[in-house]
């Protein structure tokens, strides 16, 4: 017998049916019926953030680390609009997220009621799907649809907007159970043509003289680590990993080359430019990866393995498109590919490896700090980076060995991401050390979340790379704007005293000799801890492909100082 429940209770029960046990949120008028019901469901742990943007980033971090949709909750109006940056971040990086927002009562909608915003309209371009629930009887279905859409196929964020009176409305609770999404399916090609394409791809790989694998986020999303490794090892083809593909292939593997693109090492970008076949797996050929498209890998035929057909041929012309999940496609390809080696090609690439440009004039180096973190955690930690110069160092200098241990905002490049996202990562991986690594700029965008960590006992370790500048922008100003440091010097509070104010461990490190001990000390504390590293102020990230240039035109060293004329 179905019994009657309010929409708020149905919402809670539907979430439980989806296996949800964690919500990041913030209450307010239009979502109060939901918060009123919530204490009756102890299976739903609610983490009260200090800003709704952090709820979205934390849910995002949770989803990236666990592979399951993260959930965030906000009230109507400003609560909902505060989610926007987090939703856009998740959308750009294909992260499964379900956002639940309160809305003004149905009768008041469309009349500019207090705290009314058209959040469905606002978020339409940055969600995979969204739904206004107009009747309590639809809530369970809306929740199940949201999880199905968020997690199926190419993942993404889904928003459910629930008017306050619908949360209070009674409806029958039937325990509807999960449901599948109803999209039109693109014709993925008949099995016959697919088999033919796989054979063709295998033949192309066999005939290639300078083949290269470019692996992206799709490997992580499909958990196709073993398949990627098997393909590389069977063929001897070197592997480059994009920013979001980092950690999908062991950093120490002899076939691993590094990260391509704007801040890719010279030999990695050269390998791309010299390749005759590129096997791109689960990546978008984003402009930060390709540089100027006209000059990108001109001699290469591209085999593109990608789940989303709209990505095929979007930026780079593709010779063979294999539309499907990276794992499935790689298994299909492995069945066709013959063992081979790429000795001379690999030797050629190895001959182009440059020693890292030593722009670190003593003192604290990013390598030193990151190495200490790796060592102190015995290679068992997950690092979550923010956006800027430190993000590139974290991407390039940390020796990732385990899959999905590098988490960052790639497509949107959202400063302020690391601290809240790391909360979600830490909650998805209890017992594992999680480091949020930020610049002094990005840290100040969401540092309020330290309070959340304290209240909820989330043991995130925070590292601040303090260079006194919005470093990445300053670097562009130095290289391309005649060193005019407009609006990039940034003052910081005393982070040690800030930590103290929040009641957590805090320490400032100014010389290389103290790095290791500071890192160990932070790890030794049971709760959140903060370490501020005073790095050199005008450190630059090398190499760098200037915006608009091709991968063949890197800047490899400090530009000559400006001579006043």
């Amino acid at each position, binding site marked *: 017998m179905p019994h009657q429940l309010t929409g708020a209770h149905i919402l809670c029960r539907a979430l439980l049916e989806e296996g949800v046990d964690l919500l990041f949120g913030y209450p307010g008028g239009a979502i109060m019926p939901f918060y009123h019901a919530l204490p009756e469901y102890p299976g739903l742990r609610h983490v009260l953030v200090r800003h709704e943007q952090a709820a979205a980033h934390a849910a995002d971090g949770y989803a990236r680390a666990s592979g399951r949709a993260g959930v965030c909750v906000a009230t109507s109006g400003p609560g909902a609009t505060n989610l926007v940056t987090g939703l856009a971040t998740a959308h750009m990086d294909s992260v499964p997220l379900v956002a639940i927002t309160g809305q003004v009562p149905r009768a008041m909608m469309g009349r500019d009621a207090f705290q009314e915003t058209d959040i*469905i*309209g606002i978020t*339409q*371009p940055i969600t*995979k*799907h969204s*739904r*206004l629930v107009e009747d309590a009887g639809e809530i369970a279905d809306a929740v199940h*649809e949201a999880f199905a*859409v968020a997690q199926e196929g190419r993942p993404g964020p889904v928003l459910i907007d629930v008017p306050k009176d619908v949360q209070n409305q009674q409806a029958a609770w039937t325990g509807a159970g999960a449901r599948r*999404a*109803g*999209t*039109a*399916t*693109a014709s993925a090609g008949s099995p016959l043509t697919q088999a033919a394409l796989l054979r063709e791809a295998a033949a192309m790989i066999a005939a290639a003289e300078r083949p290269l694998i470019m692996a992206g986020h799709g490997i992580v999303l499909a958990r196709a680590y073993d398949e990627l490794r098997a393909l590389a090892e069977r063929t001897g083809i070197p592997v480059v990993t994009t920013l979001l593909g980092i950690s999908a292939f062991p950093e120490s593997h002899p076939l691993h080359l590094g990260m391509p693109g704007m801040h890719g090492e010279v030999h990695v970008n050269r390998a791309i430019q010299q390749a005759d076949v590129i096997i791109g797996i689960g990546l978008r050929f984003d402009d930060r990866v390709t540089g100027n498209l006209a000059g990108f890998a001109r001699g290469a035929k591209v085999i593109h393995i990608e789940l*989303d*057909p*709209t990505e095929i*041929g*979007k930026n780079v012309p593709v010779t063979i498109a294999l539309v499907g999940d990276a794992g499935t496609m790689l298994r299909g390809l492995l069945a066709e590919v013959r063992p081979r080696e790429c000795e001379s090609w690999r030797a050629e690439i190895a001959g182009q490896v440059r020693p890292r440009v030593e722009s670190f004039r003593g003192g604290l180096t990013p390598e030193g700090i990151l190495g200490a973190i790796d060592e102190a955690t015995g290679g068992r930690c997950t690092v979550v980076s923010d956006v800027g110069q430190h993000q590139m160092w974290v991407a390039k200098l940390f020796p990732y060995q385990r899959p999905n241990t590098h988490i960052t905002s790639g497509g949107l490049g959202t400063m302020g991401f690391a601290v809240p996202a790391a909360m979600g990562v830490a909650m998805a991986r209890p017992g594992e050390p999680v480091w949020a690594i930020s610049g002094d700029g990005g840290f100040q965008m969401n540092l309020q979340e330290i309070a959340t960590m304290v209240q909820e006992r989330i043991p995130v370790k925070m590292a601040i790379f303090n260079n006194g500048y919005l470093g990445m922008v300053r670097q562009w100003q130095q290289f391309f704007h005649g060193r005019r440091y407009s609006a990039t010097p940034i003052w910081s509070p005393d982070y040690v005293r800030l930590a103290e104010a929040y009641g957590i461990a805090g320490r400032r490190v100014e010389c290389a000799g103290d790095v290791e001990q500071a890192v160990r000390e932070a790890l030794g504390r049971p709760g959140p801890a903060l370490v501020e590293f005073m790095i050199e102020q005008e450190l630059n990230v090398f190499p760098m492909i200037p915006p608009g240039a091709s991968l063949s035109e890197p800047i490899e060293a400090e530009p000559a100082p400006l001579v006043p004329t």
Partner: protein
Amino acid sequence: MTGSHAVTVLLEDRFITFNRAVGLLRRRNFPVRSIAVGPTATPGLSRLTIMVQSDEATAGRAVEHLQKVIGVREAVSFPASDGVARELALVKVRGPGHRYAEFLEVIQLYHVTVVDDAPDAVIVQLSGSESFVLSCLRALEPFEILEIARSGAIALRATNHMGSQP
């Protein structure tokens, strides 16, 4: 080959689904010439016809994007020449006055129907391919066009072209 392509979409007849489909065409900068939407024989489903001036690949990309929209059941594209594309126009003209014979001639030539005949202005209805409608409008120009309402094209792929695709 650049030309007129029809993208036809079967979708849930909810405003939000229509909004999503059209919003993505705008966001992705598809060269849309017209959009028409109306009910189908299946309750709850609408048919959306979008005419794009583009090459075949671009029309195909629009289809792939539309297929990702939740609530879209089917999306296909075809060159307008592979199907039938028609639009309806209502035209209000000042009236033939002393040029009545001339006006009658145009009406007969283009199979135009007079749907409202007031002393000050006449509303005529015409339908056909885009080029037909355009030439008809040109023929009506001498009678002083006051207002035009065009529906935008609707299109169906012709059955005999179905099998001829490579």
